């Protein structure tokens, strides 16, 4: 065991969306901060591959499927774990987890500097009081310990730095933010937007996606050049990631030390002082045991990894995991539902096209149980959607060959437009994680056992989302409308959250409203683990806002001598 004498003013575990933000905020607030990342260093100039054309890939984008099957049988379920992008996803053999028979859960993970902020889908939406009051209103789970007024300035704070493009719409359920200019819709999207306004205008609206991609130069980062495969990195730093934005900002303060290859085993608890004192680490490459000490510890390792670290941090005071006096640590796991909706083709637009690859789609904000009550379920869903023209791959389903066939496939095919719903998942005690009694990862750390399944509320909601999507596509002139009704397994939306929820009462929550552990004042959990409900919006922007707020609160509390 190697103990480092140095005591850092703060230790941040994880360098993804939330770890990066904590690094930036804490160092800019003047704290000497150690950032520990379980995976390797990523050097954009060396590791980003967004401009590698298909003909430079061994399988032309069809993936090294045997390697995926052998090394990444879970990760390959994510669309971004492709031929070039798969190096940003974990090796499933080194990083096992278990699920009970018949309850699949897909845990998609990235372990490298930048974490999943490299491959995230960048959609960025604010929650509203409709979401933050929902648990209290429905008597489900526990009430959020904060309201929109508490979060709004922090949303603005992170949006102004990250750069979010979008269009203000003045909707109470989806508050506007600090926006860069919106991206354009396609001709077909414009037609559907107008049809929705005409036929459903009292209750529904379609807007352009709000995305963390720059539509003009912003804070030293360049405007998007619309090359397409964002999940493989971005040399021009045109989309927000910790590698592209927050970590460089932290680095510029001179107060950040970033240590890759540092697999955090547990958090060290000092029973005499009632504080945490640092973290135990296993060096990813050497297997060496290390300890690092800090006055503040912030866990931003991703919802399930942060909870796993806490569950593995046992002591006489906390035999069931650190900061778990409530017994709810690991419970109330959620993910958004995905993959239901509808798809249609749009004849009549053959001479309309678009140029470039828009890293964004359209968004239809939640209307269910906002402006249109449902008799069948509570909460609701929003749609993401995109329209494209069919590519050459349609040729496989067409008879023919030869010169004319080739010429036809060189032309763009029919327009297709798909709406896919993202639905709120209710917090449920039976959806939980625990340490597996037997399995360990490549570093000997107990693996998680994940218990999670959709409930009837989610199933009814998603069925409804298919019908509502179909009627909107039809209104816009869509034909051959196909309902998409198959729900994917939880986890695949990669919005897993909960398991160390914040609340108002230490007896029923792990964290207070500042992401601070009730049981350990100098311990914070800043990632999605903190969420007591899921809303239906993509959550990363909320994690960023909560993290920035927690960092400023931590400094304030530290200065008052409370940590």
């Amino acid at each position: 065991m190697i103990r480092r004498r140095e005591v850092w003013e703060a230790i941040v575990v994880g360098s993804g969306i939330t770890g990066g933000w904590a690094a930036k905020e804490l160092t800019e607030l003047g704290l000497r901060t150690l950032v520990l990342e379980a995976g390797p260093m990523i050097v954009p100039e060396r590791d980003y591959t967004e401009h590698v054309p298909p003909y430079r890939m061994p399988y032309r984008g069809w993936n090294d499927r045997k390697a995926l099957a052998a090394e990444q049988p879970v990760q390959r379920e994510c669309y971004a774990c492709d031929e070039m992008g798969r190096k940003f996803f974990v090796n499933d053999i080194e990083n096992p987890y278990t699920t009970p028979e018949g309850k699949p859960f897909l845990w998609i993970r990235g372990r490298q500097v930048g974490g999943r902020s490299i491959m995230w889908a960048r959609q960025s939406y604010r929650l509203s009081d409709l979401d933050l009051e929902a648990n209290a209103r429905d008597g489900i789970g526990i009430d959020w310990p904060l309201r929109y007024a508490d979060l709004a300035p922090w949303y603005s704070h992170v949006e102004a730095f990250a750069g979010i493009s979008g269009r203000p719409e003045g909707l109470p359920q989806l508050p506007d933010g600090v926006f860069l200019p919106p991206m354009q819709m396609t001709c077909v999207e414009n037609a559907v937007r107008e049809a929705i306004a005409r036929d459903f205008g009292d209750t529904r609206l379609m807007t352009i996606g709000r995305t963390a991609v720059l539509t003009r130069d912003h804070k030293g980062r360049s405007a998007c050049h619309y090359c397409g495969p964002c999940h493989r990195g971005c040399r021009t730093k045109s989309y927000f990631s910790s590698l592209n934005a927050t970590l460089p900002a932290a680095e510029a303060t001179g107060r950040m030390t970033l240590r890759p290859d540092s697999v955090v085993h547990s958090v060290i608890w000092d029973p005499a002082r009632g504080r945490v004192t640092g973290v135990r680490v296993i060096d990813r490459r050497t297997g060496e045991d290390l300890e690092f000490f800090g006055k503040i510890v912030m866990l931003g390792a991703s919802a399930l990894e942060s909870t796993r670290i806490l569950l593995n941090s046992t002591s006489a005071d906390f035999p069931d995991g650190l900061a778990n006096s409530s017994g709810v640590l690991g419970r109330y796991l959620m993910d958004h539902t995905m993959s239901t909706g509808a798809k249609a083709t749009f004849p009549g637009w053959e001479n309309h096209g678009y140029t470039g690859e828009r890293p964004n789609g359209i968004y239809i904000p939640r209307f269910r149980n906002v402006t249109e009550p449902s008799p069948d379920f509570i909460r609701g869903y929003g749609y993401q959607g995109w329209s494209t023209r069919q590519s050459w791959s349609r040729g496989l389903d067409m008879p023919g060959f030869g010169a004319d066939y080739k010429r036809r496939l060189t032309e763009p095919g029919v327009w297709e437009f798909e709406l896919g719903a993202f639905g709120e998942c209710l917090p449920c005690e039976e959806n939980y994680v625990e340490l597996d009694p037997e399995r360990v990862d490549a570093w000997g750390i107990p693996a998680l056992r994940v218990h999670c399944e959709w409930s009837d509320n989610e199933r009814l909601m998603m069925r409804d989302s298919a019908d509502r999507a179909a009627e909107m596509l039809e209104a816009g002139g869509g034909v051959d409308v196909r309902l998409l009704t198959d729900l994917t397994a939880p986890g695949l939306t990669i919005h897993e959250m909960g398991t160390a929820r914040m609340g108002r009462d230490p007896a029923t929550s792990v964290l207070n409203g500042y992401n601070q552990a009730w049981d350990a004042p100098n311990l914070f959990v800043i990632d999605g683990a903190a969420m007591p409900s899921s809303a239906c919006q993509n959550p990363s922007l909320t994690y960023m806002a909560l993290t920035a707020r927690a960092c400023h609160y931590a400094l304030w509390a530290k200065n008052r001598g409370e940590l």
Partner: protein
Amino acid sequence: MRRRRALEIIGVAAGAPLLAPGSAVAEALALGRRTRSVAGPVGGAPPATLTPAQARTVTALAEVIIPRTDTPGASEAGVTAFVDALLTGWLDASDRDRFLAGLDAVDPAARAAHGADFADCTPAQQTELVGRMDDDLDRRRRDPEIDDTQTFFYDMKRFTLAGYFTSEPGLRSLGYRIIPGAFEGCVILDQYGTGTRRRGAGPSRNERPERNRAGGPP
């Protein structure tokens, strides 16, 4: 072993003038060389599965499916090397064996019908033979009781399409640019069918070979 070595040359130096005339490799390359093949190595997976005779048949078949017109055809685009890479490192053994068995049936069929190996048939004869395979695939496609994907020609066609439309000349024909520079959402194409203002065409979710995999949102 000799075969492996010979086919490595196909991958590394297709079209390069270093082969003795009359060698099996030179024969295999003949079609490609006539059009100055620029296949190049397929991403470090050296061709290793197809025999020269099989490679010759694949090249000829692919060229019938996607022929040279005012733009390069499948053989010039390096489809044979791509097919070999798939056979070598991508397909499961059972799928690879089905493909090779189907491929090996092509020449006997050509000889029975026209008295020559497929690659040596006239263009009209080749068109007739491929037409038969394509009609058969289409029949299977329409029959809900049959899995049309479990046939040689299904794979031959999809490998040819993918190999061609992800090649440099194939992508050029689609108007692909690595860095478009801008997104214009709603443009009128100059003339439907030949306009240059159209989207790029890298492999996308829709072109993924394994179906039913959930895609994420943009």
